């Protein structure tokens, strides 16, 4: 019985680690991707902010009761 839990944990964690590492190997084969951004084409020094406002709107406080310990409830 003392081996059951360590074996189960080892199988699950082992599968996850093997999946992550082999996914990395698969990714090595793919070098073609569609470009979705143009960050490298932003003219140096051209980005300028003309308005920067952080407006506080409101505050909301949620209060939830803590569960009472069982002993207190029984008394």
């Amino acid at each position: 019985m003392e081996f059951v839990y360590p074996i189960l944990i080892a199988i699950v964690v082992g599968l996850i680690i093997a999946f992550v590492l082999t996914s990395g190997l698969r990714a090595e084969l793919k070098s073609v991707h569609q470009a979705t951004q143009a960050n490298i084409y932003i003219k140096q020094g051209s980005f300028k902010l003309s308005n920067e406002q952080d407006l506080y709107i409101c505050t909301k406080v949620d209060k939830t009761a803590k569960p009472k310990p069982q002993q207190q409830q029984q008394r």
Partner: protein
Amino acid sequence: MGLQEYRCPCCGGSIEFNSSIGKMKCPFCDTEFEMESLKDLDQALDKEEPESMTWNSYEGQSWSGEDMTGMAAYHCKSCGAEIVTAETTAASACPFCGNPIVMMNNFAGNLKPDFIIPFKLDKNAAKEALTKHFQGKRLLPSAFSSQNHIDEVTGVYVPFWLFNSGADADIRYKCTKVRRWSDADYNYKETKYYTVLRSGSLAFENIPVDASKKMADDLMDSLEPFKFEEKKDFMTAYLSGYLADKYDVSADESVERANVRIKNSTIQQFRSTVKDYDTVETENSNIRLRDGSYKYVLLPMWILNTSWNGQKFVFGMNGQTGKFVGDLPMDKGKFWKYFLLYFVIAAVIVFIIAYLLMNK
């Protein structure tokens, strides 16, 4: 003037003025709002302008009789490609599909390219880059790299549209700061709501979008970037020894791809200025292009075609920088071998650690 309706950031309900407290209040969740904050928000919303992604029209240059002297045009009956080259360059196979191409009687040009980036790297550099591309790929089938015979290595000038534009943007974010604490009886969660406004501008230079239907968009995108500071005015002499594809995707058809990239990068750039919040949600973004213009250019690519197991593989090398890309096949047997190896090693290590911890 239309009535401005305010929405409660906490619950989304319409908020209204409560005369007894002299403040705006949400009738659904009872959150109260400072009038001053809403006044600032009002002013900011008034300034917002509609989005506009329009580009200036492009005249382009026509071919002169002098330009066309010494040029030859070929037609591929298989994929429809029209290829241009110097009369002295022998072209027999289509660089895109590998089928034989035939010389056309006369050269009917569309537009003359504004610029060209000449080839800096030769065919041998492309072949060396391919060998290097195979190295270190542990899941690549051994037979693919050892038996691989590249059918054709062709230097092609691929037509591109280069987009230049300024962009003005107004972006509004809904942000929160969250604080939690507890006392003996309750857990508390305080959420502070903010409307964050950012306006500004930035400029984009030389965003390339390929203008050839035969070239896969993702392959062309992956070969970026180019050093556009090295671009030259177009001269027919640069085509000697290489093929040049004529554009068959108009600038109007290509503009959408440039717009998407500009929009995404503008949003990302402005987002980087919104800091110190626990959550940030974009509520509204207006991006307006300014002085948008484009040019027609030819960019140098080495295209390498090969087939393996009935599948076609296309590799490309940037003829200026040497960047090499191309997806490779996977050996499923190797994949499972590595999966099993990693699984066994990880499982043994995890088992030992778990056993020692549980039986302390």
